[in-house]
């Protein structure tokens, strides 16, 4: 009988890492649910989370070296932020717009992840503007002779934006160490993919820029990890960019302001909820005897407790001083 070690090894991971993947995914799920709950309780005016995207997010981010590689996520990437090393406390302080939120001190909307030490670059709301930033980061690394990789994320809607084309073209020309990720959940708010593109798999566009584009089951964390790992290796070897399309589904509304019943059926949501990447991966872990049910539940309990503690810390954290709104328009002289 194959051991957990062998199974893990087949994926280039250790058994601990296989469990760590599940932990990160469950933690992301829990933080997302918590933000939506706090929003419903009226504690935060807005929530945008990534339930359903955990495999795509954790699987890609897990292939990176935190603090060395650069991450330019989009607003749904709770799983990316946590995998790289941001904490539930960081995210919940952002959700509650606390003064010491490392994301923005309450200036940016929640889920606009940022950490200088972790090289998670603060993002904006205009979709896809982070794509050229990732290109620039990688361009700088190339000029400076560093083997750092930049990964950037966008949704399927974002692939329609001109910046995405300009960025992929630029990165292709100079074989930059960029990984372009698209979390294709088949909707841009209410607009279905077939109204956004004439091609089924957006990854085919990479061929037009001279680098590989792969479409992967975005609900299969190990498949996503494998694709990302391969892309990171390519990038480190100086062979240039990779585009990764992770097909997935958001099993929650677009944001706390959205009513998804207006544009999709309960059946469709149910069908995808059944494909929940967490359930699927937990089953895989137990089926392959990497973990038993008790271990899974222990991980869940640990994550839940962390998020409970983080919620407390965040709620207790001070709100910004009103007059501080005037600061940091420009760099302040030391």
């Amino acid at each position, binding site marked *: 009988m194959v051991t957990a070690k062998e199974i893990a090894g087949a994926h280039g991971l250790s058994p601990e890492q296989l469990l760590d993947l599940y932990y990160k995914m469950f933690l992301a799920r829990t933080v997302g649910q918590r933000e939506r709950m706090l929003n419903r309780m009226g504690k935060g005016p807005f929530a945008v989370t990534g339930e359903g995207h955990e495999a795509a997010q954790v699987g890609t981010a897990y292939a990176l070296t935190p603090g060395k590689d650069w991450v330019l996520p989009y607003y749904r990437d709770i799983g990316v932020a946590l995998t790289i090393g941001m904490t539930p406390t960081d995210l919940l302080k952002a959700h509650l717009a606390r003064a010491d939120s490392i994301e923005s001190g309450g200036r940016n*909307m929640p889920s606009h992840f940022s950490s200088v030490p972790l090289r998670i670059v603060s993002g904006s*709301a205009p979709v896809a503007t982070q794509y050229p930033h990732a290109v620039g980061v990688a361009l700088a690394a190339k000029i400076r002779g560093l083997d750092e990789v930049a990964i950037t994320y966008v949704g399927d*809607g*974002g692939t329609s934006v*001109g910046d995405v084309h300009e960025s992929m073209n630029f990165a292709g020309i100079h074989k930059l160490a960029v990984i372009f990720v698209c979390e294709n959940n088949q909707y*841009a708010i209410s*607009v279905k993919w077939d109204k956004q593109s004439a091609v089924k798999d957006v990854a085919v566009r990479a061929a037009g820029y001279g680098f590989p584009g792969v479409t992967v089951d975005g609900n299969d964390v190990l498949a996503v990890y494998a694709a990302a790992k391969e892309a990171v290796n390519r990038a480190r070897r100086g062979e240039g960019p990779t585009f990764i399309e992770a097909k997935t589904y958001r099993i929650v509304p677009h944001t706390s302001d959205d009513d998804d019943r207006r544009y999709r059926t309960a059946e469709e949501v149910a069908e995808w909820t059944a494909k929940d990447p967490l359930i699927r991966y937990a089953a895989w872990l137990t089926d392959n005897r990497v973990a038993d049910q008790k271990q899974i539940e222990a991980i869940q309990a640990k994550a839940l407790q962390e998020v409970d503690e983080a919620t407390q810390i965040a709620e207790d954290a001070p709100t*910004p001083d009103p007059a501080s709104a005037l600061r940091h*328009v420009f760099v302040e002289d030391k």
Partner: protein
Amino acid sequence: MAEKQMIEAVHDAMFEEMKRDSSIIVMGEDVGGGGVFRATEGFKAEFGEARCMDTPLAEAAIVGAAIGASLNGILPIAEMQFADFSHPAFDQIVSEAARLHYRSNGAWSCPITIRTPYGAGIHGGPYHSQSIEAFYAHVPGLKVIAVATPYDAKGLLKSAIRDPNPVLFLEHKKAYRLYRQEIPDDDYTIPIGEADIKREGTDITLVTYGMMVHHSLKAAETLQSEDGVSVEVIDLRSISPWDKERVLESVKKTGKVLIVYEDNITGGFGAEVSATIAQEAFEYLDAPIIRVASPDVPIAPYSGILEEYILPNAEKIAEGARKLAAY
């Protein structure tokens, strides 16, 4: 007469125009599902997908395609989901929509309407709160409107749709569901370029537009009741062209001017109003022209505490008016 919220007035204006003229279409992100603010609720069912078109997430293409369609017998109303997201379309709006008629010596024209929710006060953060009228009022060939009442919204949106020039129509999103107003059931329009005196007064001329109209009216109320100062509140409504005549007339009457806008103070549209008055009504001025606007920080930080600190409100406006009254 029926009581309507501003968002309903916007909805009705487009709905009625599309009923009247089958060449009119709406296009934008999520408009097919009714739009994120429900401005096009029911349009797809009524007019079909071709006339209520969900576009890809690509503002430059939305405006660019609208321009093209307008050359070939279609009258597009292009929606930018938030004013902040019109920035990627800046080139198409400034270089193309606004310049086509002039550069072709009047041969081609571009009768599109671009409508978009703008403005702060809803915890939208720095990318769902911006005012953009100052950028576009500076662009020759483009008309710019900013509304914050149901009556004005319906009458001016109809005028914008019927105007043979490109019109940028700004709807203050905080005003969408602020209150209900009696508006005529039958078809009416409001001429572009005409300001509206929302409150008559004799001591101070307060020039404003957008959401600040409501804050200014409250401030005027306070000054009347608490200080016995009579403030005339002028709602520009049209930013480009704007109603110089009406403003100058009022200034000549009061001799004191308070200009109120939500946008960043430096280079905001209120600067143009002030400069015009300083040149054309200088002899009538009894006091400095005072501007009350947001400080020069990105509008608006997400935190309600920070947002409230930077945005003008009735208190800050009243304070400015008192200074002026005391002068």
